[in-house]
């Protein structure tokens, strides 16, 4: 009886969080501002974090929330910085290449749905041990350390490279020609 009650409750939270995740993810593409899109995406990740906590991965779920708060804000600011709309509040079209993206979306959905329906998933009957955080730590800093460190360094290098490429064309000339700010004091009688 008690087991049933717990199951009904966690099922309820799961479906609720799932519905919120899907709805907010859909809103990401229907809004007209980069800041709103970023925070709809964050709302979707919050719902996914709740599902992770339901799966006894409470550390992963909470870290997801912790990282996404900063990450989505930084993403919004970078999008505002690199695009033509300075404040990000004026409406703009958030989707482009409609035909390509529709085809890609349908193909991806059908592929993932086929995997979900036809694949045979292993059923683990073992009850998860309470200390999933310690297990995660041993995995991250044990057998899989090389994989994660390599991925981390590669991602970091990619970020720096992407910013270097995107910011090459600066306000005071291109970066490789030496982007130098004009002197602060007036020269030439103030003429530009």
């Amino acid at each position, binding site marked *: *009886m*008690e*087991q049933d*009650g*717990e199951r*009904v*409750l966690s099922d309820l939270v799961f479906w609720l969080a799932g519905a919120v995740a899907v709805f907010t993810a859909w809103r990401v593409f229907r809004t007209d501002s980069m*800041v*709103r899109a970023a*925070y709809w995406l*964050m709302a979707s990740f919050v719902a996914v974090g709740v599902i992770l906590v339901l799966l006894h991965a*409470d*550390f992963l779920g*909470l*870290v997801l*929330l*912790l*990282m996404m*708060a*900063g990450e*989505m*804000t*930084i993403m*919004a*600011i970078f999008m505002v910085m690199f695009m033509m709309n300075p*404040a*990000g*509040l004026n409406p703009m079209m958030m989707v482009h290449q409609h035909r390509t993206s529709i085809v890609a979306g349908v193909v991806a959905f059908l592929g993932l749905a086929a995997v979900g329906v036809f694949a045979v998933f292993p059923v683990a009957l073992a009850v998860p041990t*309470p*200390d999933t*955080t310690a297990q995660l730590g041993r995995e991250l800093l044990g057998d899989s350390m090389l994989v994660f460190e390599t991925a981390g360094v590669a991602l970091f290098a990619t970020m720096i490279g992407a910013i270097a490429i995107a910011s090459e064309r600066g306000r005071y000339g291109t970066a490789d020609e030496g982007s130098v700010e004009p002197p602060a004091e007036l020269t030439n009688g103030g003429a530009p």
Partner: protein
Amino acid sequence: MSDPAGVLRLLFLAVVGVGAVLMGGVYAVEVLDRLVGRAVARMPLRLAEAAAAPAREAGLLLLQRRTVTERPDAALWALAPALLGALAAAALVVIPLSPALALPDIGSGIVYFGAAMAMVMVAVYVHGWSANSVFPIIGAYRFIAQALSYEMPLALVLIAAALPAESLSVGDIVRSQSGIWNVVRQPLGLPLYLIAGLGLAFWGPLNFPDAADLAGGTRAELSGAALLLWHASRSAVLVAVAAMGAAAFLGGWLGPWLPGAVWMTLKTIALLLVLLAAGHLVARVRLERFVIVAWTVLIPLALVDIFVSGLLALRGAGR
């Protein structure tokens, strides 16, 4: 605990308990802030006036009409103050008043606290952005630079406090201090935590997003009930910062003679007084200087704190 009725009862207790702590804490902050301000200025304290003033000002704000800006994001603008208050309430959930007066201890309590406090960045940024006005959005962008600077020291010193406990649960962190408090064995922890906490609650010397030089920053266009809620929510964040500081560094409910909840309350009030006094005594610094100091001084010091605490914890574990 696992049956629905038990869960509902727990939710009810959480809402009532955390709500009471939050309301009491916010009112205490408002009263103490006035008293600290008068004490710093060597003025007569006038206790009765200080105790009544917040209620009177809140009443006045509730009667004030709401200002509007041109084409704001009305939903986000209305939600941001509520989000800030909700985050403070969510953070208080994992902080035990005493072993008896605590909600079920979740294993990753300190990560949960960190997640709630990281979302403060979202609440403040959205608050400034959604008003569609100049000063608020400058305040919002300021807070991002500020948040990216205080978050690393904040997270590092809290992780260092968790190391001797070998657990991320706040209850275990308090229990690990039964011999010696973290404020003694990690002398760098509490000062760094309090500086980062001032930044988190954008209070006093680190009030950059709502600063006077921006005519109030993110709250420049705010009036009435919304201003009251924003103000109270910011005080609630300060309460959460002080409560977690008391639990992680001052031994929480541990102490002789008095009941645990009384010790926890006294320690929280002591930290609140330190934070409020900093608001009255320390001059506001420039944001650029704070960012530079945070990245070149505070983060390296926090790393030293975590390495030394880790070495001590390893030595303790090997014994």
